[in-house]
């Protein structure tokens, strides 16, 4: 069982940061995968791009602030982070004002990204 090559995993993040547990539980998977040194890429799209907004004041809801955890991901070698350009544009978000450095992708580039990973998880 120990003789294996870890698969490349793309995590597609479609959910807004608050309103249910999905974003938080996706982050748990990301942190576990990072701890296990699984080759990992993240793609923020649909309402998932709202997770990238800086200065989230989730204590008002109240909920745990996910925006406080996302910026540490590059320190865990999770640095292949992508966002859907049109999802950002549709929501009036500027990719230079996010809490993480992301590479913005066209839909064609997103298709290539998906094709270049062995496993895709979507939340």
């Amino acid at each position, binding site marked *: 069982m120990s003789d*294996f090559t870890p698969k490349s995993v793309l995590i597609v993040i479609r959910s807004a940061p608050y309103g249910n547990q*999905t974003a938080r*539980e996706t982050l748990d998977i990301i942190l576990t995968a990072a701890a*296990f040194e699984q080759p990992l890429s993240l793609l923020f799209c649909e309402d998932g791009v709202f997770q990238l907004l800086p200065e989230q004041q989730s204590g008002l809801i109240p909920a745990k602030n996910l925006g406080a955890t996302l910026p540490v991901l590059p320190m865990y070698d999770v640095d292949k982070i992508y966002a859907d350009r049109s999802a950002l544009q549709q929501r009036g978000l500027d990719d230079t004002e996010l809490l993480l450095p992301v590479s913005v992708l066209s839909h064609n580039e997103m298709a290539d990204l998906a094709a270049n990973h062995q496993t895709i*998880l979507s939340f």
Partner: protein
Amino acid sequence: MKLSLLIYGSPTGSQAPHTAYRYAAAALEKGHTIHRVFFYGDAVHTASSLTVTQQDETSIESLWQQLLRKHDIDPVVCIAAAVRRGLLDETEARRHEKSAFNLSSPFTLSGLGQLLEAINHSDRLITFGY
């Protein structure tokens, strides 16, 4: 083909655990093997022994139980997702000083490392979300 399943849709708020069950039964019927089924998010409620299903409806818990036992599949329920939703086994009930436990057999509580293990050791991981 060696398959693993990730289910995170709720058994009451979504069709996911039912669809996954039908997929698993069909795949096994076709001669594929299922290495692990990983229950995450609201899908952990599938493994509750306290769910009451009306007589003219099918219990998703018992459907999964039968399939898991018949084919000796490893059914892992994410421990963190489970305990925050009040799904506990005897060990967790004692650890958190709760008065009861409700994890159905043969489901087991374990960590997200089991999901990554399933990804790395299966030909395919199939996700059943909302």
